[in-house]
């Protein structure tokens, strides 16, 4: 087994393992922290796929932004001193069955589909290319995205601010 392959499996294991922690942990704090592993792992996967920019964005936004948000939310909605931090789960059996069926189908699909192969697989820096695309053929979605973010921002502020009851 090559070193690269080994590292891939290692990263994949970290990703899946921490994702499983997220899914099964009884403590929401643990869940939240495990998410860090997943996000970092996925960033690693991106590196394997030659997507340097996306990997960086993954780390910046998921780890730096979303995860921190989630942690804040956890902290704000639970008194940290509580011994019992609930992370109740319900209906495990039907969920497991559904998920199992689903993953089986997915794997089958993955196996059976004749995926298109690229002519050559290259590892070049992608940041420049992505930047160009954003300002050319993806200009409109890009601008729309900025609008969506603005709207989300305002929406979040409006929703989360404390109502002052009269």
């Amino acid at each position, binding site marked *: 087994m090559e070193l690269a392959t080994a590292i891939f499996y290692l990263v994949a294991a970290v990703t899946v393992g921490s994702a499983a922690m997220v899914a099964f942990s009884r403590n929401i704090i643990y869940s939240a922290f495990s998410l860090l592993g997943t996000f970092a792992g996925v960033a690693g996967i991106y590196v394997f796929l030659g997507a340097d920019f996306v990997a960086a964005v993954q780390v910046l936004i998921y780890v730096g932004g979303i995860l921190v948000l989630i942690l804040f939310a956890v902290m704000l909605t639970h008194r940290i001193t509580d011994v019992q931090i609930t992370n109740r789960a319900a*209906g495990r059996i039907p969920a497991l069955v*559904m998920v199992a069926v*689903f993953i089986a*189908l*997915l794997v*089958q*699909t993955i196996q059976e589909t004749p995926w298109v192969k690229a002519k050559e697989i290259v590892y070049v820096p992608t940041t420049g290319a992505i930047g160009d695309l954003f300002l050319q053929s993806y200009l409109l979605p890009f601008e729309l995205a900025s609008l969506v973010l603005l709207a989300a921002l305002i929406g979040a502020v409006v929703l989360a601010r404390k109502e002052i009851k009269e």
Partner: protein
Amino acid sequence: MEHPIQTDYLRWIVLLPLLGAGWNGLLGAQLQKRVGKWLVSLFACAPVVFSFLLSLAAFFGLLALKPEERFLTDRVYAWLSLGSLHVDVAFWVDPLSAVMILVVTGIGGLIHIYSIGYMHEDRSYWRYFAFLNLFTFAMLLLVTADNLLLMFIGWEGVGLCSYALIGFWYQDHVNTRAGNKAFIVNRVGDFGFILGIFLIFWSLDQQGHGTVAFREIATFASLLQGQEIWGIGVVTLATLFLFLGATGKSAQIPLYVWLPDAMQGPTPVSALIHAATMVTAGVYMIARLNFLFSMAPVTLEVVASVGVATALLAATIALTQTDIKRVLAYSTISQLGYMFLAAGVAAYGAAIFHLMTHAFFKACLFLGSGSVIHAMGGEQDMRKMGGLSRSLPWTFWTFTIAVLAIAGTPLTAGFFSKDEILWQAFSSPHGSSWLWLLGVAGAGMTAFYMFRQLFLVFFGECRADHHVQEHLHESPKVMTLPLVVLAVGSIAAGWIGLPGIFGPNLFAQWLEPVLGAAHEAHGSGAAEGTLMVFSVGVAAFGFYLAYLIYYRRALAPEHFSSLAGGLLYRLSYNKYYIDEIYQFVFIRGTLLLARIGVWIDQYIIDFIVDGSARTTALVSWVNGLFDNYVIDGIVNQLADSTFAAGDKFRKVQTGNINSYLYVILGAVIVAIIVKLRYWS
């Protein structure tokens, strides 16, 4: 193109009344208060009189030239110059406009003088004269403009003054509404007029000669032949557009409805604007552009048909009206119809001739009625008059002469001009015996209703109450003198345009350089004489009927009004309900359009922000305006509407997120299985 003679006094014909208007408009109120009304009158009448003298000078200037060179022009400055569009502020006088400026300043001057007496008691004396002068300016601009766009200034300018003078006594909303109606109806006509200008300009521009100046249009008009727009010949469409303008200004079907209401203004205004000058602008315009109209036989047919139809329709309405001025108003519409009939059979000279004679006798009639109203203390209902010939002798005699003239009594002005029109309607290549017959029928009715008016007002017993009777008095000299001059004109003005069988037609010769030679009649002199006798006979019958009913009282009017169950009478008396129909179709139509807009917008909003209809209706009720919430609604009520949308859908919702997820997941699984099994 021969070079016209450049002068620099023509501009003063036009500008003097403007100076008078400016002076009285800005300073009149103070002058009237500090110095007195005489100074206001002086500054109002003097410019018009001077204009008249200058017009005479221009007339004699033309007379001194050879017929084909009779053309004076005065270019003041370049007004607009953009791309191929070049418009000058330039005035011109040729035989046609010479007639018009003499009529406008001559009759206008008389009416100015008459107004000194008529308006003497009014508080806003200065305002009246300012507008009257402004009107004279606009009318002179209209007739002396050397291009269509400048003419349009005068065209709308006279409309403005008409609006202002109809609503002169603005404290009463009846008057202001009449003014609004006149202006807006005229705007519809102006809309056609301006489109006609655009069409002519651009069609000529395509040939490399874009212009709006009359003389250049005349030179290049032949280039328009064969051009089309929207599948219609350019000349036809342009002349139809222009004719729409003429129907507005000259009160023809379908836009005549404003003129009867315009009688709300002071009576001298009715005489000047709504009888003698402004309403004839359409006729003048068609005569001015006769070369274009002659190129469009379809348009000519429309013009003639509209003219004769208007003449008849208005005459039938005039038969039953009881308001002294309304009868005259409908008579004016009817006479204008005759002018358009003449123009429509390409007898432009006859139209202008009738325009001129009509200016005399109709001004005389209106001023006479003004004198009557003055004496009656404002009463306008003919049923309350009668027997006024004794107390108002001057008014009576001049009025009688004018009635004789309009009825077409031989040797009066109206006889010659109307006869000329009827003869042309019969004999012209564009004419037909039908047009002639309808015209004669109208002439008979004219004689009837005019003599009806004469008998009702001046003969018989006075039906006014005692208070009014005691105060009956003849008007002052300043009012009767113009009446006498106009009465003389009502007879003498016709003699310059004698029909072929009586002698040379000086008037037609005078206009020949502009309007072209009158066509050779294809009938003989004998035919003309026969038709003339016939039409006089019909008019005499109309007179006799009026005499029997309203003088001898041998026939009861009810005898006729109850014909066909009174239906005809009611139709005529109520003006065929045209006003009501217009009100319903156009005014309500516009408002309905707005409401349809409201409805559509509400529908769209309801579509976009589902469920917010109630709030929307509330806001719409408060604001009265829909567009506030097409967009605002989205902004302001997003939260509301989301909730409302949820409200509608909540019947199918349990609120349990997990259950939704199971449903979704199940569906996805089924979809994948189906895809794998059956489509792979």
